[in-house]
């Protein structure tokens, strides 16, 4: 209908069928959804956010505020809020309009428009306060119900996203004439160049520059040649459909490349790719955005940007109307008028400037024009213009506006470069750099083609040179244009003869912010542009004020009697255009969200039906249910087996650090609370490590392998932290010490064999080490072999039973485990998991860092004062223990709790109060059913707890209290007789 034959970059021989709101329509390959709709005469594409006013397509690309659609591709692939101007058409594209009920044409929320005078900016701050309870019950639910634009998808997105790091000497953002010439010049020097452009085809404004020539070639042809040259160079990465969305510190730019959305069907590869590009120099050639005009009723469908209309013509061969009125405050409006006219469209041009430059134009020009309003409900049908003292209504099917051009300084400003007000361009332009970057061409306010090309060559050369690459001299391409961009422009609201308090002249289309909203804000004392933004929400919509910011700025300036440059502008933030969450999240999902760390014995545990728990990044077997056992049953069985016979436990996740060097013992002395000098070779000791503030950081057993060699263990979660702490002290406090640390966590697989039969089971396997009771007493460490593998054996016990920890190189872990398993089975040995381990150690009153401690617990609180080397003058954290709070008598101390009813299980975390209630005295840190004791057991931290041993307290629970007696934390085998089997 509105498609002009043989025009544009669309393929007139390749029709594509698509649907919009269920209507089947036809477009062409090379169309955007917007151009295809326009070709079908469709302007009405959306409803505004607040007033639900009918809205049409306003722009032609990233600045579109109105025409937001949801594209549905099936199978969870539903994407809301896409500007139709950026959706590339493909066969069978399905799109729906948004924010209307039931249809675009008849939207019941358009009632808001009629109530509009009572819903000015910020009205919600002034009302909905009475009666008080109505806010949460009535008002807010209703407000929320009408909020939002598109609908979030309900199914998980099946598409893939990926990430890539890239490095280059020169990154060029924007592939218009400025960007292409910069990239070409820089690339010829041999340096690495990345060029990205957010449009489907590189070329920028050249693609629609119908009448311009460069070096004798048509503009498009020149662009094609430039692109072909760039594509052929191995040092160039040319990325179309790639938006540079964020400028981050130290010249890191975030780019989002769209790989799948323009293609029909399921994407074969990732849908989008996120690039983190670190560039030595950045050239911003992002062009300029045309500014709309603020006049009464400037939001009807069919009212759009003049250059957008020109682009639809030149890129897509689409006439946005048959009879158009172009309202312009800038010479560029004439260019659009000429090109539209030449395509056979009837054009009237209304120039808002007083003395329109005398030109010989083949169309009517109305100088000194004032726009009084427009008509038309679902499509503009007429515009009223007053000029030379009379008012004239002109019927039309489209109104185009051009207020001048706003350089796209988004990225430059994000980089924290400074901006200066350019009175001629009537916009802010880059003035100073904070990073190694520069802006060129229209982005720098230099709007003429020749300037863009010259800027590009210079910037490309400079950037390459700065990166140490000598550029080959390339002559600046010579440009000629039929219509230069010219001058002019206006910002702010256009004057008109109507009561400004009554008209709706839109500044921010999507958020329904009008000039009078901004006036209201300034009237109410919101003078800062940041306040105006927040009070009116101007510039906060999905286009982030690409069209509105300068106009709202100018209105604010006018209202507050300040020059525009004194008002400043709101902060530019990433992203330049919205970026898909998935692209930012990348491949990280499910088991790639974080690494899943598994021990060498993991597969065995899986085969045995183990249930796992997450501990840090590790998967640890929690218990090994048999048949229909639940956790409690399995844990009971495992606990009984350990004490009755033997248990096998995978402790491979324990952190391990090999500490080597002549000063190793000195180092440990300074670090741990314990004394290490006299630890004999072949012996182990339980060590406690404090933070410098005196609280427990970690614990673990440390064995001495040689005078200068220790094998230290840490908790699973503490491994990295402890190693980092050790390195910190070594490197920065005591660099004189001769000590070296090596993480061996993953070198050694650790198999704990615990229980009365432990020695019997291990003896046949261990070689080169006498593990008899006398030769290898509790807290021994020794080396030998087992099943042909190197063995580091520790005789330690976290269960209170006779126990060994078999350390073997990880590649042997599974085999050695199986070997022990085979021998142990006939003796009743069982595999036990972390849950049984917790129960067994709790029976013994052994703490778990992170469970009994929480970063507020000292060694003394935890009952570990015995570990502190009494004669040591200093160790990390010691001085802090002398602070008043550490000596307070009411510190919480570790105790055992015994419920009066042995079957009653306390809840971990439950609060402990006095026998008659009152404030909290502490909490239950661990609580289990102990099969070995035949009753429940618990550990707790209780204020002054040790002195309360034998007293009765209560554990406060919702249904009343549970009475408990305070006991010693060691509940099982208090004399430790079982350690020796």
């Amino acid at each position, binding site marked *: 209908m509105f498609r002009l034959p043989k025009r544009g970059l669309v393929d007139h021989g390749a029709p594509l069928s698509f649907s919009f709101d269920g209507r089947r329509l036809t477009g062409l390959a090379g169309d955007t959804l917007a151009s295809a709709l326009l070709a079908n005469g469709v302007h009405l594409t959306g409803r505004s956010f607040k007033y639900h006013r009918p809205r049409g397509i306003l722009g032609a690309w990233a600045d579109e505020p109105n025409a937001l659609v949801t594209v549905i591709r099936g199978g969870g692939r539903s994407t809301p809020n896409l500007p139709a101007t950026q959706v590339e058409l493909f066969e069978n594209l399905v799109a729906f309009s948004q924010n209307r009920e039931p249809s675009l044409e008849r939207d019941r929320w358009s009632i808001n428009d009629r109530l509009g005078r009572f819903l000015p900016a910020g009205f919600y701050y002034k009302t909905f306060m009475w009666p008080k309870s109505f806010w949460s019950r009535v008002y807010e639910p209703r407000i929320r119900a009408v909020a939002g634009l598109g609908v979030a998808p309900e199914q998980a997105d099946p598409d893939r996203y990926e990430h890539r790091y890239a490095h280059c000497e020169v990154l060029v953002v924007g592939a218009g004439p400025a960007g292409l010439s910069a990239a070409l010049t820089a690339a010829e020097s041999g340096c690495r160049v990345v060029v990205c452009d957010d449009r489907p085809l590189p070329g920028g404004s050249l693609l629609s520059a119908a009448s311009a020539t460069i070096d004798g070639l048509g503009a498009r042809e020149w662009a094609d040649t430039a692109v072909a040259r760039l594509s052929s160079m191995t040092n160039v990465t040319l990325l179309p459909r790639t938006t540079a969305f964020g400028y981050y*510190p*130290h010249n890191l730019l975030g780019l989002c490349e769209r790989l799948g959305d323009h293609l029909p069907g399921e994407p074969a590869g990732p849908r989008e790719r996120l690039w983190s590009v*670190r560039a030595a120099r950045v050239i911003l050639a992002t062009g300029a955005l045309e500014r709309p005009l603020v006049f009464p009723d400037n939001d009807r469908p069919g009212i759009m940007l003049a250059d957008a209309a020109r682009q639809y013509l030149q890129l897509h061969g689409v006439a946005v109307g048959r009879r158009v009125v172009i309202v312009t405050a800038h010479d560029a409006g004439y260019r659009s008028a000429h090109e539209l006219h030449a395509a056979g469209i009837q054009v009237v041009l209304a120039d808002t400037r007083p003395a329109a430059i005398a030109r010989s134009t083949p169309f009517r020009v109305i100088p000194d024009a004032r726009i009084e309003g427009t008509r038309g409900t679902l499509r503009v049908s007429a515009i009223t213009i007053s000029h030379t003292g009379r008012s004239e209504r002109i019927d039309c099917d489209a109104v185009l506006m051009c207020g001048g051009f706003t350089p796209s300084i988004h990225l430059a400003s994000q980089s924290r470069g400074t901006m200066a007000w350019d009175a001629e361009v009537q916009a802010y332009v880059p003035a100073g750099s904070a990073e190694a970057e520069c802006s060129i061409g229209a982005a720098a306010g230099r709007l003429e083609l020749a300037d863009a090309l010259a800027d590009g060559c210079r910037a490309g050369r400079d950037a390459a040179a700065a990166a140490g690459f000598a550029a080959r001299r390339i002559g600046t391409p010579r440009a000629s244009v039929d219509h230069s961009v010219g001058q002019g422009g206006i910002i702010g609201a256009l004057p008109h003869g109507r009561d400004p308090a009554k008209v709706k002249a839109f500044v921010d289309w999507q958020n329904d912010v009008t000039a009078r909203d901004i006036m209201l804000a300034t009237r109410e004392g919101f003078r800062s542009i940041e306040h105006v933004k927040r009070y009116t929400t101007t510039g906060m919509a999905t286009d982030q004020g690409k069209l509105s910011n300068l106009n709202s700025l100018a209105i604010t300036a006018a209202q507050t009697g300040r020059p525009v440059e004194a008002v400043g502008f709101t902060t530019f933030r990433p992203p330049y255009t919205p970026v898909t969450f998935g692209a930012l999240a990348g491949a990280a999902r499910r088991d790639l969200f974080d690494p899943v760390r598994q021990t060498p014995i993991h597969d065995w545990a899986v085969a045995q039906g183990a249930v796992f728990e997450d501990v840090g990044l590790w998967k640890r077997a929690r218990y090994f249910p048999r048949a229909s056992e639940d956790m409690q049953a399995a844990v009971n069985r495992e606990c009984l087996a350990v004490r009755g016979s033997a248990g096998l436990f995978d402790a491979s996740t324990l952190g391990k650090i090999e500490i080597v060097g002549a000063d190793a013992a000195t180092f440990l002395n300074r670090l741990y609370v314990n004394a290490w000098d006299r630890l004999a070779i072949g012996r182990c000791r339980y060590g406690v490590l404090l933070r*410098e*503030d005196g609280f427990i950081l970690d614990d673990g057993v440390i064995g001495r392998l040689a005078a200068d060699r220790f094998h230290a263990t840490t908790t699973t979660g503490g491994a990295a932290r402890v190693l*980092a702490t050790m390195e910190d002290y070594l490197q*920065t406090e005591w660099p004189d010490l001769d000590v070296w640390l090596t993480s061996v966590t993953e070198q050694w697989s650790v198999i704990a064999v615990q229980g009365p039969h432990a020695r019997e089971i291990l003896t046949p396997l261990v070689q080169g080490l006498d593990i008899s009771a006398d030769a290898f007493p509790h807290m021994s460490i020794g080396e030998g072999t087992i099943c042909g593998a190197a063995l580091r054996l520790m005789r330690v016990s976290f269960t209170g039973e006779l126990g060994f920890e078999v350390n073997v190189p990880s590649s042997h872990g599974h085999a050695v485990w199986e070997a022990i398993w085979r021998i142990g089975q006939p003796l009743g040995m069982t595999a036990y998991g972390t849950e049984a381990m917790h129960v067994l150690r709790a029976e013994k009153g052994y703490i778990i860092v992170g469970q009994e401690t929480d970063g507020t617990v000292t060694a003394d609180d935890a009952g570990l004062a015995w570990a502190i080397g009494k004669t040591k*003058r200093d160790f990390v954290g010691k*001085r*802090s223990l002398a602070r008043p709070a550490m000596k307070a008598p009411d510190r919480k101390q570790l105790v055992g709790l015994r419920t009066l009813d042995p079957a009653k299980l306390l809840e971990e975390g439950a609060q402990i109060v006095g026998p008659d209630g009152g404030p909290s005295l502490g909490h239950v840190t661990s609580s289990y059913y102990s099969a070995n004791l035949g009753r429940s057991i618990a550990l707790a931290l209780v204020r002054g707890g040790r002195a309360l041993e034998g007293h009765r307290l209560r554990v406060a629970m919702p249904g009343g209290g549970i009475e408990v007696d305070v006991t010693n934390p060691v509940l099982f085998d208090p004399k430790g007789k079982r350690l020796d089997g």
Partner: protein
Amino acid sequence: MLLIPCPYCGNRPEIEFSYGGQAHIARPPVPEELDDDAWGAFLYARDNVRGPHRERWRHLHGCARFFNLVRDTRTDRIIASYRVGTPCPRVEPL
């Protein structure tokens, strides 16, 4: 993601590093000689300057060394990078 000049490895991306807070706060050689005020200040008080900040970093996923940077906390611009044990280069007031 900052680009951090490790004195051993050259420029490397921030994600390889861990941050260690203000630099040049040496652990007192004999802590017990400090009163609670001085000890408390050692533990917790920080300059937290807005401007050139001398700070500790560790090239955790690189050479694993601790080192110091002077970084302007108003801009994140890095002014100097130097090894532990070497004096802080003179930083001109900005």
